[in-house]
Structure formats: structure tokens, C-alpha cells
């Protein structure tokens, strides 16, 4: 059986491509381009640009809260007096009505009741449910009430392979969650594409379409692994004080987590 296909001569030069490409073709583009073109405006659909695009998933009260480049000043003491403290409001919702010293209390409160969203994509969802059930009980940290509605959830545990068709709904889900919200990438597929990295319809890591706070690798990770990740998230909520300069879309791993 002949393996060489017909239409071999139809390789088109990039210049011809730029003219040829239409939105439908963008949708058809397989691995990354959907994620990418899902994030660039229709006017600047340039498929050759790198995938690390600035954060367009939500607008903040203070846009410079998401500015990149400046090192994260995250400690409470440095935070007071610096104007970074103001920019907490960008991520932390109504925090500006609360005095600075109370932030610690608020963080402790938020750390101790992280309600995950009841949404599983694939295999890891089973282990996510297993982490919530009797044998290893995530409820001990006040994490059990899996809210069915994103409006009442704090943590989005992306459990399973993210496909190009599911990317839009997932980003929508993330936007529907009210601030403050956190995202946990559970499983290899969500961290890096995993065993489906090569496929034509998967996204190589969800950090190409949404910010991620904690990565839990494994295929799938054991429930203990997920619980450890959630505890790390609690530590993050307590310590990082809501300033996330590295939260631009793009593959990035928090160094201290």
C-alpha cells in the first residue's frame, strides 16, 4: 500500500500562507494554534508569533498588577508601603476595603476553605473524586464541598487532558469563577501535554490558555499527590499575598512551590 499521499506538491510558502489562512483554518489548526489564536485578536492572527501571550483572560482594576518583568515582592513587610499592596485589589477582589493587617487573617480564612469546582475532564477526575472520598479525605482541610456552580468555587482543579475543543469552555469556566480563584493543573496532560503531546487535538499544557498556580504531575497523580498539591496551594494562598507577576499566559513554573 502506497504511503506517499497525493497532493505532495501543495506545500505552500509562509507568505502564501498568511494570505491563505482564514479563521476556519485557524480553528482547524491542530495542536497549539487553536490555543494561540484563541488568545490573539482577529486582526493580529499571526501564527508565527510565540505562544506566550500576555494575560487576556481577565481585566484587572489595576492593569499594572499583571505587569511582567518586575520581581515579585511578596513578603508582608516589603508589601506594606510599597504600591504593590494596592495592586492586591487587582487579583483579590474586594480586599481594598479591608485594612492591610487584616489581610493575614483573610488569607488564613481563604486558605482553610478552598472549595474546588466539581469539574473533571478525563482520567484524573476519578482520582480527584477518590481524593475526596473516605479513604483519603480532602474534607479535613475544608475542601470537600465540591461546588457544582463555578460562581461559588475557589479552586479549579483541571483534571485530565485538555483538548482544543474543550479549551474554550474551560477558559469560560475559569472566567465565571469570582476572584480570588486558583487553578491546579492535575496530571501530566494538563502540565505539559503528557502522553498526548503529539496529538492533533490536544493542548500541550493548560498554562497556554490559563494561569496555573500549582502543578501536580503524574499520570494520574495519586490522591495523596493531589492533596499535597492542595496543601501547597493553601501555603501559597497564605504566603504569596496575591501578587502574581508571573501570571501571564505561558508555560511557567513557580520556583518555590
Amino acid at each position, binding site marked *: 500500500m502506497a504511503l506517499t499521499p497525493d497532493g505532495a506538491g501543495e506545500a505552500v510558502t509562509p507568505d502564501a500562507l498568511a494570505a491563505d489562512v482564514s479563521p476556519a483554518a485557524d480553528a482547524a489548526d491542530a495542536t497549539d494554534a487553536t490555543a494561540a489564536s484563541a488568545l490573539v485578536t482577529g486582526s493580529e492572527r499571526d501564527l508565527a508569533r510565540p505562544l506566550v501571550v500576555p494575560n487576556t483572560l481577565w481585566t484587572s482594576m489595576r492593569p499594572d498588577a499583571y505587569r511582567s518583568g518586575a520581581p515579585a515582592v511578596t513578603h508582608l513587610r516589603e508589601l506594606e508601603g510599597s504600591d504593590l499592596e494596592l495592586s492586591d485589589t487587582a487579583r483579590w*477582589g474586594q480586599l481594598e476595603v*479591608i485594612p492591610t493587617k487584616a489581610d493575614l487573617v483573610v488569607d488564613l*480564612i481563604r486558605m482553610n476553605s478552598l472549595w474546588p469546582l466539581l469539574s473533571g475532564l478525563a482520567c484524573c477526575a476519578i482520582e480527584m473524586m477518590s481524593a475526596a472520598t473516605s479513604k483519603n479525605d480532602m474534607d479535613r482541610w475544608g475542601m470537600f464541598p465540591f461546588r457544582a456552580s463555578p460562581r461559588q468555587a*475557589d479552586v479549579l482543579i483541571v483534571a485530565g487532558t485538555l483538548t482544543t475543543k474543550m479549551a474554550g469552555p474551560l477558559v469560560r469556566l475559569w472566567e465565571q469563577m469570582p476572584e480570588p480563584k486558583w487553578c491546579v493543573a492535575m496530571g501530566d496532560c494538563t502540565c505539559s501535554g503528557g502522553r498526548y503531546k503529539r496529538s492533533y487535538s490536544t493542548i500541550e499544557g493548560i498554562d497556554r490558555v490559563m494561569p496555573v498556580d500549582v502543578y501536580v504531575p503524574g499520570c494520574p497523580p495519586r490522591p495523596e499527590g493531589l492533596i499535597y498539591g492542595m496543601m501547597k496551594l493553601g501555603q501559597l494562598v497564605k504566603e504569596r499575598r496575591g501578587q502574581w507577576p508571573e501570571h501571564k499566559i505561558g508555560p511557567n513554573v513557580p520556583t518555590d512551590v
Partner: protein
Amino acid sequence: MTTVNRAWGHLSLRGKVIIPLLFLVLIVGPIVTILFANVVGPWLADLLGANPQIVRFVVAIGGVLLFSIPAAFIIIYMELKVIAFMNLRIGPDRVGPKGAFHSLVAGLKVLTKEDFTPTGADHIVFTWAPVLVFLTAVMTFLVIPFGPGLVGQDLNIGLLYLFAVGGMSVVGLLLAGWASFNKYSLLGGLRAAAQVVSYEIPLTLSVVGLILLAGTLSLNRIAEAQAGWFTDWYVFRQPLGALIFFIAATAEANRTPFDMAEADSEIVAGFATEYSGMRFGFLFFAEYVNVFIISALLVTLFFGAWNAPVDINSILALVGLSPIAVTLDPASLGVGPLFLMLVVPVVLTVIFAVPFYLARSTRPAWQALVLGFLLFILVAVGLLFLLAYIGWPWMAGLVWFMGKSFLFVYVFVWMRGTFPRVRIDQLMGFAWKWLLPAALLNLFVTAAAIIIVKS
């Protein structure tokens, strides 16, 4: 003095908070009380005596509002732990002793989340619907007699007021569902409306027989009518009515197995789907306040409100003793107790500390002192409680009322942990085909019995 210093120094943060608080409660509190009773009280009484109704009303409202939130938190914690226990889980155990503050933390977290109105929602209605739901739930407390004299407003049409206010909550749910601009919310609101409206009827009819028996609509009198032994409770005269009331009240409060309005697996979160932040907190609290209210109503109407199941005085009369009558009137004691209040704690603390100190030679003095103080607290509180129980009838009533109410709250949580959810048509069919005829039958039999007995 150094011992006290070291004791203070070794205390943990929690101890440093608790022990001064206990001092305040046990020493400063009584002093203030007595001063108030002797000096300030009469003057204030004269001042307010002119217009007692308004004062009573304001006080009652304040008390009710202050009471409803802790009650909701306690019930939420009960639900967390009881369901965890039924699921062979541990349940929340990180915040506070055995996770006692997890519900509080969750509530505060909900308050600090972004308050959010979806695009396309009706902003005003969306904002005020949860307030309406919560308010109707809290307003119901006003006529519930927690004990003899412990009732916000002793309306002589208390039951009518209850059903009227309780029926208003459905308006809030309907508004919440409609204003959310979401089809799931709309379905949830409509389900809630249909369900509550159709269960109002058996709910109301089930207590008409009781009203015939009691001859009054005032909850206070209904409670008084059930005094004495537990055989005087209305549940033994109106068993069918009690059963119907229990089922209909469960549906009224949207509890499992009748929680169609927020069925997770069907319509995502029902009328609360689009709610976040504080407004979701209102809906969340209202649900649990409702649970307490239906339990309290069950107790008030059918399970002998604040009355103890056994009548101690009758037993004593049987034995031949005179009934206990202790009147606790701090005003009559004069300044003596004031002096005692200052001296007794110190002396007793030292006395109680001695055995601890002698028991283990390795135990330092500060530990013995702390332990002794705690033991003294225990004894003192126990004594005071016993005195209050005997002396103040409303205290005894409150204890029994709360005990019975939370027993029923446990039953509701238990049902939630075990039952699946019924279907909407089964729900309606049950209300109209079974509960309503049964309630009518109950009413007919009761009326006939009354007539026969009268004649």
C-alpha cells in the same frame, strides 16, 4: 506573685485569651449585674415602662438577628460532621477543636469573595432576592417561644403569622431564579415555587386539628397547653398531623429528599447557580436557618415546646415533698455576694490546685494553678447552671427547647446524608394525592372527636 507571672508566661496564646475572658465573665459580670439590678435597672425600668411594647420589639429583633447566624453556623458544622460520620470520613478537623470553626471560616470566606452580577441579570432584583429570603427566615423566629416568656412577640395569631411569613420566602426564591438570567436558575425558581406553594396546603391543614384542640393560634398558649408529662404533648393526640407536618415542612424548607430547587445533578445549583459572594452566603444561611425553624416548629407544636418530658413537681408531690421553688433575685442579696465574688474564686482555685500540685511531684506550680482554676470554673459553672435551671423557669425551658430542636436538626441532616432525591412529578403527586386527603381526614376525625367529647 512570681508563680502567677510564670503561669501567665507559660500560657499559650489561646489560654491568654480565654482565662481573662473567664475572669471577666465570672467576676466582673456578676458585679455589673448586681449594680445594674440595684441602681441602673430601676431607673431604666421607669424610663422604658412608659412604652414597653416598642422596647420589647426592638430587643426581640436584635436578639433574633444575633441568634440566627450562630444557629446557622452550628447547623452547618453539624451537617459537615454528621454527614462525614455517615460517609465513614473524618470531616473537617483543621480549624478549631475538631474543626468546629470550619463553618465559620467558610462563611467568612464567602463574604470576602468577589460579589458578582452576571451580565444580563436584573441587578436590583438579583441583589435583593437573597435579602428577602434571609429576612423571611429570620422574621419567623419572632413568634417562636424559646421558653416561658422568651418569645419575641406573643401574637395571638402566631401560627398565621408563621405561615404567612414562611410563604413569603418562595417569592425570594422565585425572584432569585428569575433575575439570574440563567435557565437553570429559572427552572430552580419555578420548581421551588411549585413545590412550596403546593406543600403550604397540607402544612397548614395538618395543624388545624391541633388548633381545634388547643383553641388558640398563639404559639405561647399552645406551648403552655402541653405542660406536664410527655403524654400531654400533641404528637400523641395528633400523630397523623405530626407526620404530615414533618413531611410538608421538609419540603417547605427544600431539604433532601425534596431539594428539587437546588438539585445538584439536574439543575446545577438551582436558583443559587449564578450567586456568589455575600449574596450566596445569604441564601446559604437562609437554608440552614429554615432547618432550625422547622425543627423548632415541630417541637413547639407537637413535641411539647419547652416542657420537660417528666413533671418533677408531680413526682415530688407523689413522694410527698413540696415542689421546689427557688427564686433567684440578685437584688435581694445586697452587697454580700459582691464580696464573695471577689474572694471565692481565688480561694477555691488554690484549694482545687492543691491536689494537682501534690498528685505529681514533677508538675510545676503554674500548671497546678491553671488546672485548679479550670476545675473551679467547671464546678462554678455547673453550680450556677443548676441554680439557674431550678430558679429561672425560662432557663429550664430554653435547655429543653434547644435540646429537642437540635435533635430534629440531626434528623434532617441524617435524611440528607442517606436519601436520594425524588422526582418533581412524584413530589407533586405525593402532596396532592396523599398528604392533602390525609390532612383533611385528620381534621375531620379531630373535629368529630371534639364534638363527641363535648356532647
